[in-house]
Every structure is written in structure tokens, then in C-alpha cells.
């Protein structure tokens, strides 16, 4: 089958690849481009491990065809740290033991990032709703919720 071109920015850097038409974004990111931060859990839209941000919106990369992202800005968890310094959400997840096996973590952090981008001071209910498409089999969720609330607080303290 003839390959088709895809071109988008990934964490701010231009990416261009030839892929099989119909390839999912998850497959293109992990196996073509080499960004393994989005995880393939269920490939059914159920677990949220593959969650990425496309043009500022949360999406499931396992159900998104890569060709539909031409010209888009794709953000993954691997693009969050700057100069070796962890993003406030990554730091809060580590400090709050919100990551155990870590499989759900990149998706959780993407969902939390979109929440904090729009709602810098979320309530607990806002956090629960924002993470409602992401499954964690290890932590029991509470440390994750606390980590997101902590990151929000530390962001607003740093902003003062």
C-alpha cells in the first residue's frame, strides 16, 4: 500500500513522516516517531493511557487517525519538562506517590494539564470529572487527585 505523508508539530517541533494510510496517531507516535510517552492500553478508548493533547483539546490517540492531525499541534507528556526540570504536574505526581506502575501516568498528566490550563484553581469535583476518562489500576485514584490539586496550588503560588 502506498505511504501517505503526515506533518504536525509534536511538543513544538516539526515532525513529518510517511505512514500507512489509516495508521492511528498512537502507532505513529510510538512506532514511527519514537515518542513512547502515550501508552497503548486497551486500543478501545476505555483506559485513557494513550491520551494526548491536539490543538489544546484532550484526545485519545488510539482512536485518532494520524492523517487527521495534519497541520495540528500535538502535545504529549514527554514534551512537558523544560531543560531537565520537571513540569509542576510531574513533580506533584512524584511527590504524592501518584504513580506506581506508571502506565496510566502520561494520560493522567495530559488530562490534568488541560484541566489546569482552563481551570487553574479546580475543585476536587473538577479534578474527578477531568480524570474520568482515565483508568488507574494501582493507586486507587486518591493520590492522583491530591497531586493535581497540589500542582494547582503550587502553580498559583508561583504566579504570585
Amino acid at each position, binding site marked *: *500500500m502506498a505511504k501517505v505523508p503526515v506533518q504536525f508539530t509534536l511538543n513544538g517541533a516539526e515532525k513529518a513522516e510517511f*505512514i*500507512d*494510510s*489509516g*495508521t*492511528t496517531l498512537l502507532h505513529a507516535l510510538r512506532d514511527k516517531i519514537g515518542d513512547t510517552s502515550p501508552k497503548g492500553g486497551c*486500543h*478501545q*478508548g476505555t483506559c*485513557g493511557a494513550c*491520551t494526548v493533547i491536539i490543538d489544546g*483539546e*484532550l*484526545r*485519545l490517540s*488510539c*482512536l*485518532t*487517525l494520524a*492523517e*487527521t492531525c495534519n497541520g495540528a499541534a500535538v502535545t504529549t507528556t514527554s514534551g512537558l519538562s523544560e531543560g531537565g526540570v520537571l513540569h509542576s504536574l510531574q513533580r506533584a505526581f512524584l511527590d504524592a506517590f501518584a504513580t506506581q506502575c506508571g502506565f496510566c501516568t502520561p494520560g493522567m498528566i495530559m*488530562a490534568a494539564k*488541560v484541566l489546569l490550563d482552563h481551570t487553574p484553581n479546580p475543585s476536587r469535583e473538577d479534578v*474527578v*470529572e*477531568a480524570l*474520568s*476518562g*482515565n483508568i488507574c489500576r494501582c493507586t486507587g485514584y486518591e493520590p492522583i487527585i491530591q497531586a493535581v490539586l497540589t500542582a494547582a496550588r503550587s502553580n498559583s503560588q508561583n504566579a504570585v
Partner: protein
Amino acid sequence: MALALQTFPTVEDAGAALKAAGTRYLGGGTLVVRAANEGDVSISGFIRSTEPALSIIRISGGEVRIGASVTMAAIARHPDLAPLAHAARAVGGPAIRNMATVGGNLFAPTPYGDFTVALLALDATVTTDYGELPIETFLAKRESNHAIVTAVGFTLPKEGGFRFLKQSRVKPKGVAVLSIATVLEQAQDGTVTSARIALGCMADRPIRARAAEKALIGRKLTADGIAPALAVAHDGTSPPTDPIASAWYRNEVLPVHLGRLLLA
């Protein structure tokens, strides 16, 4: 194996391409890409159209037209569609809502199709590349209809006239045990003058509760007033038994939830 995607600038060209065997229209992909990922060999390719009209919400004089590619998230945040926001937010989690389209929801099999339940109660019309159909007619033959849905249209209900409820086991997001939408009109004294009740998960696709609708006319929304409607709420239902609930359970709880919605 990857399945080729063909993108067309017009619905007309996409419609012609969709005649090829094994092709499926691609909305947000939350069901059809999932099916492909699960190995559904009946799908050999995806077709989509990027015609701008498909992504537009138009509201004028109380008449609403929502393009088929409009997502649940776009409906939920539209200020003039506030009465429907609750129904749009009932679909999946945040990422699913950014992808799930109105067009795709019309084809979603039970236990999905929550927004379609709302559209059925609103007595929407469904526009396809072959013309316009009442939603009930459309739903009855949606599998055999190979048309592309381009938009849905309905009249915005009067303030407080539209009610929606989705009951699920997993909170805040979960697949429906059942969902119910109602559009009621009442006289000054509270007597119901017209009623449309739509049910989700009470058959293989959303259905109207005709007997309950009839039993509500001329009644008031009190416990006594709605009792005859609740007594016939499961007339004509054939709910599935699935991992969420048994058919028996769905029929048992339907009058309870319908009662709560009517008395809310």
C-alpha cells in the same frame, strides 16, 4: 493492518466513495476506529468529508441546526444550547466528548446513544445527502441507510421544557443503565398538554415511550398525576441484558427514574 482513509472536501464526493464495499464513514472515530482496532474485518477503509457546513451550529429564531461533525464538547459549551449541555456531557469522558460527533451518536448501538435520546425527545429531523427524515424514521432503518448524515435540526424547547437523566453505575462517567429525555408542555395550571418521552437502553436503539406519553396528557406532574404514565412506562420496551444491567433490572428501575425526572 492499517485501513486507508479517504478525505473529500464535499459530502457529495464522500457519498460516492462510500458506495465501495467495506467502507465506513468516519466521524470522531470513537466507535468505528475502535471496531477496526478490535479486528472488525468487515471494515476495509474509512471515508470522511471536511465540508465546513458539517462542523457548524446554527441557531436562529429558536430553530437549531447542528452539523453532523459537531462534537459533544462543542454542544456542551455552546451558550445557546445550555438546556442540552447536560445530555452532551453525559457522553463518555472529556477526551471522548472532544471526538464524539452528533452524526456518530445517531448510529451508536445500545448501551450508547445518550445524545440521540435527547434528539428523539426533541423530535429532531435528520438531514442526509438524500434528504430530510424524522428522527424516528431515521433510527428505524439506520443500518440499511447508507447515506451520510449532514445535520440534525430541532426547535429549542421552552425554558424548563426539556429534561434529561442518565443513570450509570460508574460515576461521574459510565455506560448507561438507562437514559431518559422528556419534552413537556404544560397549561397555566400545570396540566400536561403535550409530552414526548424518549428512552435509551430500553431497546437496541433509542425509542419513544408512547403509552406513557399518552397517559400524561391532561395530568399534573404530581405523584398521583404521573402514576398512570409510570404504570405503562415499559410498554413496548425490550431492553438488553449486558454487563451493566439485566433486562429485568432495567424494566424494574425505568418507572423509578422516569418518576424522579417528571417530579424534578
